[in-house]
Every structure is written in structure tokens, then in C-alpha cells.
């Protein structure tokens, strides 16, 4: 089978746009992993809540404004949920065994999953893209969805914002230090508990952003958390735990190998991510980029 | 018995050990001293195989051990204790030492005999020699800091080493505990015929116990000589003794 250059470029762009959503979600997961050392299974549930909240908020307004408002509000709602969970429960557990924290986040994901079902019901939901981003544009003769173009633009923006946050703001610097040596941060007289809370909320906020951004492209269903979380963990692992750029590299690897994979070896599409992880980990046992663990 | 020749190790471009030389003769008690960050612990990690040296040679009983993994080095007769307590916190005191004894007797892979009936005598003898026999049933993580440091040494003895490496054996101990511990070390060396390599901050201890002292700075060996010579060495005084 032969493909023209236009199709290949199109496929590459589709892969990148898919990577961007993965990146935004994984950057959040990786951030929490780095600072709090917690593998947050509930991250997927928060992403799901982000998508469902986007659906509800979009429906409240007529026309396209709803989606733009949802893009702001839905992640904030997710952040609020995570803040409550962190302050009420999670903050008391940081001294525990890692696996206990894993168990805790799993319990939270169970609860959130059922809460979503209670609030939104179990049926599929669908959000339409705003008018501005509907349909597709012609790109070298092949057609390319506008919404995916939008994703390609927004991904780097989030990356830059996050990067600026970690190097410019005080909280960002502290949380970076906490990732490396949390005792030192405590010695400096910084309230570690609040640093953790803020880091956790920011990580979860990104999950919400991812959920809001993905909403127009998929059917919003219960169980979308499961599909995502395992992929997100694999990405974070191959990128290097706690490394934001690692999350970006991992997402790009996943997105691009996937989109070219389905072009050339569609019958093996389901194993691509796993093979990618096996190869990366056997060559670089601590992930591609420097891990904070 | 042990020769370290021109060993180097860098972490991300930082030279933690940059040309260390050390000779330990059989039956000797040798101390390594140097300011914080001089590379003492890194050197011990290199000797025991926890880290792999970038350059240089480590020879034990005529064999180059610098490429061997830690467990192989241990099997050749080198045991160590750690500066920061490094025990098995969820096992009993007895269990802590027994792990080492079993490993030494090559019985660790036995699947079906109850461990409580194996190597009991040896383990208890070691516990008795360090004075922890009365606490053998306690969970190691619940011991006092001083006892945990002693347990450190006891675990290292479980392998019946020829060379025992002690990384600041008295760190965090009260003065009484410190002198008791050093007395214990000296006694062990005598009764078991051990060769001992240790590092220590307390200069009084070093100079009273060690037969030979190696001084490190910035990862480099300045000198290895008898306590007398070291005390009188100008460079050492400038670099280290004078500084404190």
C-alpha cells in the first residue's frame, strides 16, 4: 500500500494532536508522582469528571459559548473535587507506605466512578465542538479536522505554562525542590502540607483540562477513566517519573507510533503501546528522561 | 589483604572519588577520615560493589573485585555496616542476623524447612557477642537507635567476614554508647581475628583505635600512614585537622 506525502503529514498531525491530550493528562499525573510520590489511580476518574462536567456546562448555554466556558469551569470543578479529597483525606496519609497510597487512590477512583454514575447517569454523552472548530480544513489535498489543529496549538501552550510555573513561581520552585528532597523543604520552614496540596490540585486540574479538551472528540462514558489511566501510567513511566518533558516525549511516542501504526500495521494496533514500553524500559530502565525517583 | 588503587567515581560530572588509594593488611584496624563530602562513604560503596568505579582497581586477597556485584564481594569475605541505620525493620532482631547467617551458609534457598530451626546456634552466638541476645524477639524497627547501630554490626558479622567495613559505627550515639561500641569493635577484632576498615568523625576514637589512617579530601587520598605520622603531617593539619 502506498500513501502520498499529504496523507503521511496528515497522519503525523493527527498523531500529534492525540499526543497533546495525553500529554496534558500525563503531565498532571507525572507532576503529582514527582512531588507527592503518589501513583494517583484516581487521575483517570478526574479526567472523566472533567469530560462529564464539560458536557453539562456546554448544555447550559446556547451556541458555542458553552464549550469555551466549560473549558474554563470544568477543570476548576475537577480541581475543587481534588482539593476536597486532598484536604479531607489524603493529607493525613503521606507518611504511609506507597502501596497504601495506591490503595487509597484506587478507593477514591471507585467512589468517584460511582458518583459520576449517580450524577450524570450511565448513558453516553456527547459534546459538539464549537462552531469555530467544527468541520475540517483542506491540507495539501487531504482533509484535517479543525479541532485537532486546535489541540496541536493548545498542547505547547500548556507545556510552556507549566514550565514557566515550575521555574518562575515560588510554589513551582518549592514543589520542584520537594520532588528532589522533601526533608530539605520541611527544614526550610515551608509548610510542606500546603505545597503538596497545591501540587496535587494542579496535577488534577490538568486531568480536568484533558477531560474537557477530549470531550468533543469522543463519546463521554463511564469507563473512559480505565482506558486512559493505564495508558497514562505507561507514558509517564517511559518518559521518566516526575519529569514533565518526559511526559511530553512519552505522549508523542504513543501518539505518533499509534497513528503511523494504524496506517501500516493496523492488525497489531492493540499491542503498540505495550511494545513501546517494553523496548524503552529494557533499554533505559529508568525511562527516557531523568526521573526524580 | 585489600588494595584500592587510583579509584575514581563521578556522579553527573561531580567527582565524588577522584583517585583514592588504600591498603589494608590482614588483621589491621584501618580508619578513613576526611571532612564531610570527602567521599568516604562513596569509597566504601565502591569497595563493597554497591557502586561501580569508573576507573582504578580494587583488589581483595589478590583478586580484582572491582567489577563484581555486591553479593559476590560479600561471599568473598567483605561485610559492612552503614552510616544511616540500614537493617530489616519488620523482621525480629534474631531474623535480621539470621538472614546473613543463612546467606553465609548457603541455606537461603531452602524452601521447605522451617527457618526457625536452622542456623540458630550461630545466630545466637553472634547476638550474644554483641549483647543483643536478650532482645532477640523484638522487632528490629522498634529498637533504640543505639541498639539498631549495634544490630548493624551484628548483621555484618553474620557473614563471618574477614574484612569488616564500618561506616561511622557510632553516628548518633551518646558518649557512653560510643565508647562501649568501640570497645566492642576492638574486642571483635581480637576474638574473631577480623580485619576492620572504618570511618569515623570522632578523632579521639580514630586515633586511639586505628593502627593506620587514610585521609581523604575532595575524593582524593592525601596520605595513608600510622596515627603518629598523620597527626604530624602538615598537609593533613591544614586541610582537615586545623580546619575543625
Amino acid at each position, binding site marked *: *500500500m502506498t*500513501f*502520498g506525502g499529504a*496523507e503521511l503529514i*496528515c*497522519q503525523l498531525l*493527527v*498523531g500529534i*494532536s*492525540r499526543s497533546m491530550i495525553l500529554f496534558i493528562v500525563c503531565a498532571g499525573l507525572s507532576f503529582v508522582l514527582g512531588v507527592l510520590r503518589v501513583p494517583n489511580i484516581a487521575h483517570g476518574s478526574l479526567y472523566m469528571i472533567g469530560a462529564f462536567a464539560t458536557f453539562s456546562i456546554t448544555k447550559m448555554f446556547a451556541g458555542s459559548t458553552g464549550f469555551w466556558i466549560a473549558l474554563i469551569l470544568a477543570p476548576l470543578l475537577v480541581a475543587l473535587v481534588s482539593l476536597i479529597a486532598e484536604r479531607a483525606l489524603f493529607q493525613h496519609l503521606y507518611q504511609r507506605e506507597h502501596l497504601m497510597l495506591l490503595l487509597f487512590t484506587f478507593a477514591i477512583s471507585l467512589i468517584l466512578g460511582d458518583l459520576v*454514575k449517580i450524577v450524570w447517569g*450511565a*448513558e*453516553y*454523552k*456527547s459534546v*459538539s*465542538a464549537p462552531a469555530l472548530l*467544527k*468541520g*475540517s480544513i483542506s491540507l495539501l489535498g*487531504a*482533509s*484535517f*479536522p479543525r*479541532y*485537532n489543529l486546535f489541540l496541536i496549538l493548545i498542547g505547547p501552550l500548556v507545556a510552556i505554562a507549566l514550565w514557566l510555573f515550575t521555574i518562575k513561581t515560588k510554589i513551582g520552585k518549592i514543589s520542584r525542590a520537594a520532588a528532589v528532597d522533601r526533608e530539605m523543604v520541611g527544614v526550610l520552614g515551608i509548610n510542606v502540607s500546603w505545597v503538596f496540596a497545591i501540587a496535587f490540585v494542579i496535577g488534577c486540574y490538568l486531568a480536568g483540562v484533558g477531560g474537557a479538551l*477530549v470531550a*468533543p*472528540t*469522543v*463519546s463521554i*462514558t*463511564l*469507563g*473512559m477513566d480505565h*482506558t*486512559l489511566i493505564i495508558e497514562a501510567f505507561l507514558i509517564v513511566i517511559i518518559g521518566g517519573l516526575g519529569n514533565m518533558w518526559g511526559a511530553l516525549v512519552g505522549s508523542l511516542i504513543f501518539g505518533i507510533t*499509534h*497513528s503511523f501504526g*494504524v*496506517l501500516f500495521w*493496523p*492488525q497489531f*494496533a*492493540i499491542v503498540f503501546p505495550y511494545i513501546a514500553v517494553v523496548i524503552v524500559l529494557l533499554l533505559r530502565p529508568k525511562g527516557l528522561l531523568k526521573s526524580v525517583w | 589483604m585489600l588494595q584500592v588503587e587510583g579509584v575514581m567515581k563521578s556522579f553527573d560530572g561531580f567527582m565524588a572519588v577522584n583517585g583514592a588509594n588504600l591498603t589494608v593488611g590482614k588483621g589491621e584496624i584501618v580508619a578513613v577520615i576526611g571532612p564531610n563530602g570527602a567521599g568516604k562513604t562513596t569509597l566504601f560503596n565502591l569497595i563493597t560493589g554497591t557502586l561501580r568505579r569508573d576507573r582504578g582497581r580494587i583488589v581483595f586477597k589478590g583478586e580484582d573485585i572491582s567489577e563484581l556485584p555486591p553479593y559476590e564481594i560479600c561471599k568473598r569475605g567483605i561485610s559492612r555496616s552503614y552510616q544511616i541505620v540500614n537493617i530489616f525493620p519488620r523482621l525480629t532482631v534474631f531474623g535480621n542476623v539470621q538472614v546473613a547467617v543463612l546467606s553465609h551458609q548457603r541455606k537461603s534457598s531452602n524452601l521447605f524447612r522451617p527457618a526457625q530451626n536452622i542456623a540458630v546456634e550461630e545466630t545466637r552466638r553472634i547476638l550474644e557477642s554483641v549483647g543483643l541476645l536478650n532482645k532477640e524477639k523484638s522487632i528490629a524497627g522498634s529498637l533504640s537507635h543505639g541498639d539498631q547501630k549495634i544490630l548493624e554490626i551484628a548483621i555484618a558479622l553474620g557473614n563471618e567476614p574477614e574484612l569488616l567495613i564500618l561506616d561511622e559505627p557510632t553516628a548518633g550515639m551518646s558518649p557512653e554508647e560510643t565508647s562501649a561500641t568501640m570497645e566492642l569493635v576492638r574486642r571483635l577484632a581480637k576474638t574473631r581475628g577480623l580485619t576492620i576498615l572504618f570511618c569515623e568523625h570522632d578523632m579521639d576514637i580514630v586515633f586511639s583505635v586505628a593502627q593506620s589512617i587514610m585521609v581523604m579530601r575532595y575524593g582524593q587520598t592525601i596520605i595513608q600512614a600510622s596515627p603518629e605520622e598523620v597527626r604530624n603531617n602538615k598537609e593533613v593539619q591544614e586541610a582537615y585537622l586545623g580546619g575543625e
Partner: protein
Amino acid sequence: MERVIHRRNFLLFPVILGLMFLVHPVLDVKAQGPIKVGIIDTYSGPPTTYTYDVRDAFKLAIDEVNAKGGVLKRKIEFTTRDDKFKVDICLSMAKELIMMEKVDILMGTINSAATLAVSEYCKTEKIPFIVTFSKSEKITGEKGHRYIFSITENTAMIGKAAAAGLAKKPYVKYWIAGDDYEYGHALADGVWGNLKKLKPGVELIGQSWWKVGEPELTPYLTAITAAKPDAVIFATGGASMVNAMKAAKATGFAEKVPMFIHTATEHSTLAPLGLDAPEKVIGTSNYHFYYPDTPKNRAFVKAFKDAYGREPKVGALYGYLAAQFIVKALEKAGKMDREKFIDALSGLKVDSPVGEIEMRAFDHQAMLPMFMGVTKKVREYPFLIASDIVTIPAKDVMPSIEEIKKARGQ
């Protein structure tokens, strides 16, 4: 002191056991109690789009019957269990319904693997089991037996129906894409095998398969567009349906390449999409609430809407059919005897919202007609509906008895 605690600890065990016995309802005296139907289905996650309708329509029909005094002067009672779309839970729950609740008839399941597992169990326990949503053709085909009935379409039927419809279209170069699991592959094989038979000139130029639940289908669609087929057969179900339709709309795929998706025209797919669904997609379905426009169907739709405030989807037809078959078979059997019930149900005909449906005696597969249509926006509804509907009669849809025998190795 220590011994006391020991004893308390082991006393706990008999106490728990005792509690288990207490919870266990005493059901042995049930001679003239209600007839019990157990429904085991997925009531969490995406499949609820279908299963809730099955349950609700079944309840609607049963309530009607009970209001008139029940069947054989006994009421019909049903209990539901959620299997979470998991085979092992489904098996446990089915066993619980049979052993503890002592149900007379079991129905439900949307997960094919779970259906096959429960089917084997029902065979050993001699319990009639009516499948309401699983699409595997093995259920009444290769693995069929005396105790299993299916009142839903299966992959073999979809294949036949789709091929019959597509053979009339002018397309030659096809591409097949779908969910990478048994349903997808079986459906694709069914459509393609039959299409090849009806129209030997067709050509398969490529295939793509994605994992079940794959959220982003755009890369697949752009890959397919690049190959320039005349038409694409999508073998997807469940949540992937909605994803496929969305991606088809966003990439403009639907306007460029004619696409066939089974259930694309079905209300379960079109309702959540609202006006975002692509037009001109060819689809097949067992049921539309607006077609066939018969008094019987109108009455059913009205009753369903009055009760639940929404239009019935295809699942509602299955639930309603199940109730109709059960009630009529019981009446015919004369009493609640499982063997007699099965004899009565085999070959039984009921007058359903989509016309008269027969339960084929040989393989216990309900003979359902299929409706092929094309998605279209209309003014009356805030969602798309099927237009240009062609009815493919049951006789053209059903696998032949020879085929079933062959599959069973007879």
C-alpha cells in the same frame, strides 16, 4: 488473656456463617407463589444505553400482564443483577439467581463471553435462558442447545442483512474497519462472506482494527481516506459507535466515503449525538420507534414514553419481545414446568411491535426482520433518524438450518 482472644476470634467464624444462613430467604414453599424471572445484565458503564431499555420495556409488559391477573393465575416477578460487564461476576450472579432466588427463567446479558459461560451453566442446570442483547452467533449456532433462546439479532444475521442491502449498491472496492474483538470480527466476516456470495465482483482493499473503547478514531479515518475505497464497512458496537460517528463527522469522512455501520441508524447511537451525527451513513437496525408505522408499534411507543419519558430504543423491543414470548409460552405450557415451557416456546409466534415474530424451533433464534436506512436530519426531532428505510425480511436474514448444523458439526 491470649487464649480468650483466640477463642473470640474463631467464634467469629460460625457467627458469620450463621448470619449467612439467616440472610438466606426461605423459599421452599413457593408452589403458588409468583413465577420468577431473573435478569442478569450490565447495569453500570456504557452498556446501560441498551440494557436499561431492555429492563424497562420488560417491566412495562410484565406490569401490564400482572395488572390483568398474571399468567396461569400467578404473577410474574423479576429480579435484576448487575454483572459489571464481567464474565466471572456474571457467572456468580447467574448462579445466585438460580441457586438462591430459585428463578424459573433466566434472561439478559450483553457480554457475549458471559452469555456463553452462563449458557453452559444453564445447560447443566436445565434452566431456560433467554438472551436479550449478546450478538455472538455462537450462542444459538455452534454452542446452541435445548435451554438457550435468543431474541436478539446475531452477527450471522447482521452479516446476511447487511450483505443483502449492500449488494444492491454500486460499490466495488471496500475497506473494513472495526472494533478488535469477537463481535467486530464476526460481524465483518459475516458481512463480507455474504456480500462476496451475492456479488462476487467486490474487492477488499484493506482493513483497520482498533482496540475496544479506542477514544480517538481520527487517525484511522484519515488512513482509510488515503486508500480511497468506494465504501467502508464499519464493524463497531457500543461506545465506539459514537466515536466513529463523531470522527466521521469531524473529518468530513462521511461526505467523502459512503459508510455502512450496523446500528448507525439506531436510536441508541443517534440520540446521544444529537445534531452532531453525520448524515448519509447507511445503517441497519432491528427497530425504530418511528418505523414500522403500525398501530401496534405506535401503541408500544406511547406506552413506553408515558412510563419513562423517552423514546424506546432497540433494547426496548428485545425486552418487550422477551416478555411476550415468556407470557405466551407459559400460557401454552399450562403450568410453570421448565421442560414444557421450552417445548411451548420453540416455534412460538408472537405479535410484536415490528410484526409477527417466530421463535425458530430448530435453533431457538427469534426470526427478526432488519431495517436498512440512511441517516438524515429532519425537522421534528433534535436528533437524526433513519430515512429511505428498506425492510429486509426475516427469511433473508436468518442463517439456514444447514449452516447451523454445519457449525455444530452435525
